C-alpha cells in the first residue's frame, strides 16, 4: 500500500504546474550563466585569479566544462532550497487547503504510511531536481566547453584536480548536496503537517534557513557551540569533496548531522500527523 501511495504522490507532483517551476528556473539560470561564461568567461577568471598571478604563472585556459559546472553549482545550490520548498511545502497543507486530505485520511492506508509516502515523494522530487541541475550544469557545460583539469580555490590556495578525478567527485558532491536539500524538504513537509495553507510551510522553511544561516555567520561566542549542529552549516559541505586531500572526517560529521535532522523531523512529523484532527 505504501508503494501505491508513493506512486499516487508522484502522479500528483507530475500533474501540478508548480512542480515545473523549479526545472524552468534551473534551465533559465544555468542558461544565463553558461552564456555569460561562454561570452566573457576569461575576464571572470582573470578577476578571480588576478591576485594569484603575482606568484603563479598560468599557461593556457582554465575555463573548461568542469570548472564551469563547479561555478554554476556554487551559484545555484543557494537557490535550490526555495525551489524544493515550493513543492514539498505544499504536500500536506495543499491537500488540507483543497479539502482532499479528508479523502486520503479516510482510506485504509495508515496516516503514518500516508505521510511517509509524502516524505518519499519529496525525496524523489529533490533527487530529480538535482539530477536536472547536474545535467544542465555539468553535462551541458562539458558539451559546450569540453573537459579539463579543475582549478579550485580553497583556504589553502589553488588546487588543481586532474580531469579523470573530477567526475567521481561531482557524483559524491551531488549525493551530499541531495542530503542537504532533502533536509530542507523534510523541514517543509514537516511544517506542511502543521499548517492548513500552502504559503506558511514554504515561508516558514525559508525563514528557518535564514535564521540558522544568520546564527552560523554571526561571530558571537554564544552561537559557537550551536553552529556545528545547525543543518545550514553543512549545506555547502559538498564543496569539501573537491579538496585534496578530502576531509573525510568533516564530511562524515556533516552527513551525520544532516541525517539526524532528517530523522528527527520525520519522527516528529509522523508523531504529530498521526494525532492531528483533520478539520478542513
Amino acid at each position, binding site marked *: 500500500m505504501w508503494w501505491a501511495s508513493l506512486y499516487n504522490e508522484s502522479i500528483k507532483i507530475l*500533474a501540478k504546474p508548480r512542480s515545473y517551476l523549479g526545472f524552468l528556473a534551473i534551465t533559465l539560470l544555468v542558461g544565463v550563466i553558461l552564456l555569460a561564461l561562454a561570452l566573457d568567461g576569461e575576464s571572470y577568471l582573470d578577476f578571480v585569479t588576478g591576485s594569484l598571478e603575482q606568484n603563479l604563472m598560468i599557461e593556457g585556459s582554465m575555463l573548461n566544462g568542469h570548472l564551469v559546472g563547479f561555478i554554476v553549482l556554487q551559484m545555484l545550490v543557494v537557490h535550490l532550497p526555495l525551489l524544493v520548498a515550493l513543492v514539498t511545502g505544499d504536500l500536506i497543507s495543499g491537500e488540507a487547503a483543497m479539502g482532499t486530505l479528508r479523502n486520503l485520511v*479516510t482510506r485504509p492506508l495508515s496516516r503514518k504510511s500516508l505521510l511517509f509516502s509524502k516524505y518519499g515523494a519529496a525525496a524523489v522530487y529533490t533527487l530529480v531536481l538535482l539530477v536536472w541541475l547536474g545535467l544542465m550544469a555539468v553535462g551541458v557545460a562539458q558539451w559546450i566547453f569540453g573537459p579539463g583539469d579543475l582549478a579550485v580555490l580553497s583556504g589553502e590556495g589553488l588546487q588543481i584536480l586532474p580531469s579523470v578525478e573530477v567526475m567521481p567527485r561531482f557524483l559524491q558532491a551531488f549525493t551530499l548536496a541531495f542530503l542537504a536539500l532533502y533536509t530542507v524538504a523534510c523541514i517543509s513537509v514537516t511544517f506542511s503537517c502543521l499548517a492548513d495553507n500552502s504559503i506558511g510551510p514554504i515561508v516558514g522553511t525559508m525563514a528557518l534557513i535564514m535564521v540558522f544561516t544568520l546564527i552560523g555567520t554571526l561571530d558571537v561566542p554564544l552561537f559557537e557551540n550551536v553552529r556545528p549542529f545547525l543543518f545550514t552549516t553543512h549545506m555547502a559541505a559538498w564543496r569539501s569533496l573537491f579538496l585534496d586531500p578530502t576531509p573525510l572526517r568533516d564530511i562524515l560529521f556533516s552527513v551525520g548531522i544532516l541525517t539526524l535532522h532528517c530523522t528527527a523531523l520525520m519522527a516528529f512529523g509522523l508523531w504529530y500527523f498521526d494525532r492531528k484532527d483533520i478539520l478542513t
Partner: protein
Amino acid sequence: MAYPIIEAQGLEKSYGSFKAVVDLSFELQEGSVMGFLGPNGAGKSTTLRMLVDLIRPVSGNLRLFGLDYRRHRGRILSRIGCLIEKPDFYKYLGALQNLELLGRSSGIRKPRQRALEMLEFVGLAGREQDAVASFSHGMRQRLGLAQCLLHNPDLIILDEPGTGLDPQGIVDMREMILKLNREQGKTILLSSHHLPEVEAVATHLVLMNRGRCLVQGSAAELLSQQDRKIRLEVDRVTEAMDCLSSMLSRDKMVQGDGRILELSLCREELPPLIKALVERGLSVYSVESRQKLEDYYMQILHHHNNETHHVVGLPI
C-alpha cells in the same frame, strides 16, 4: 439478525473551551438508514468526523463493526465509504484519475476498472477524462458518491449529499440511497438539513442539539408519537368545524386562510372525518398531509432550547 455497526458510548470532543460533542451515545444497526439531524453547530459534522477517524474523541468508546479504532483502524476504514461535507478532488486531474488514485489508496487491485464502473453507476460515464475543474457542483457531488462507493463499503456515511443539487439531482440521490440500502444491503448514515429527503429514506433517527443527542430510535416509533398535521380545503369552513366537533376536540382544529381547515390527528382518524364531511354535503377539494418529521424536529428543538435557557440559563 442485525447487529450494531456503530456503537458510540459517551463520546466527547472539545475545541479549546468549546464543547462540540457532549456525552454522545448511539447505535446504528446493520441494514438501516439513519437520519442524523440537528441545526448548524449541533455537533453532527464533528461526530461524523470522529466516525471516520478524521478527528479523535477526547473521551468515550467508539466501536465500528465490533472493532476498536485504536487497534483495527485499517480494517474499519476499509469497510466505510464517506462523503464528508463538500466533495473535494484534485482539480487538475480527470475524474477517472481522481478515482484511480483513491482506489489505489484503498488497496483495490484493479482501480481503473472499478473507477469506470463507479463513474457509470453515478451517471458520469463519458466524462472520465474531463478535469474535475470543469465539473458542476452536481457532478462533483456524484463523483463524491462514486469515491465513497469505490471500495464497496458496508457502511456509507453521507454528510449533506443533497447540497447544491437541483430537484432532479435530489431525486436521483434519494433513489441511489434507497437502491444502495435495499438492493445492496448497505447501512447508511445520512446527515442532512433537508428533512423531507431524510424522512423519505430513514429507518432510524438521531437528533442532536448543542453537542448532545436529544432523541434516537426507530423513525416509525418516534414519528408515531405525535399527531399528523392535515390541511383540508373545504367549501364551508365554519360548517365543517361544526360537523367535526363531535368527532374531534376543538383544540385540534384551526381555521386557516380562506377555505383551509387545519387538523391535528393520527393517521387512522382521517377516513371517518372525510366521510362525515362528504355525508354532510360539504365539498372537500384537497387533503394535504404536512411533513411529520419537520414538525417533530421543530417541536423537539424548541423544547430543548427552552429547557436549556430556562433551567440552565446558559447554552451548553
